[in-house]
């Protein structure tokens, strides 16, 4: 998993059926300094995260299917948690 920063969302009407009813958010992976770490990715939301939240970004298809309860769907990025704080 990665630390991610939710920056916004994507509106899409014509899409693969598995995305119907899913919120697709734009998540920017973070490094330890809280800065940009790689390109922004799109992820399905399963914990009702909003813009500005620091979240746990999980990018593995098999786990994504178990989390969203779907079978064989073309998505692999899911937000699995909202981070309260990161302590050293």
């Amino acid at each position: 998993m990665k630390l991610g920063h939710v920056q916004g969302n994507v509106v899409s009407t014509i899409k693969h059926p598995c995305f119907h009813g899913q919120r697709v958010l734009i998540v920017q992976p973070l490094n330890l300094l809280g800065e940009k770490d790689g390109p922004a990715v799109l992820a399905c939301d399963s914990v009702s995260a909003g813009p500005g939240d620091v979240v746990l970004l999980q990018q593995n298809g098999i786990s994504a299917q178990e989390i969203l309860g779907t079978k064989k769907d073309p998505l692999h990025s899911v937000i699995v948690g909202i981070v309260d704080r990161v302590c050293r």
Partner: protein
Amino acid sequence: MRLARVVGTVVASTKDKGLQGEKLLVIQPLDEQLNVASDEVVVAVDCVAAGPGDLVFYTLAREATFALKNYNAPVDAAVTGFVDQVNVEVEGKVDNLILE
């Protein structure tokens, strides 16, 4: 999954039989500001009848084959949806991410 712009199509008559009948699109990954992220170009199988110039999002890795009828197709990228609107509300870095 990432945002991308469809740049063109690929025509290949000699190819693996798993790819027979699939439309191949040339897509360019974009960042959240819809600027070209890098000069990387990806060839992806089209699942939503996208054409050149369309803003789409695509899936990578093994999950891309789940967008097709044939789950064992030799595919690692599939265009899975059009993007109508991108709302970026928060930008920049996260201050004091780590509490000492």
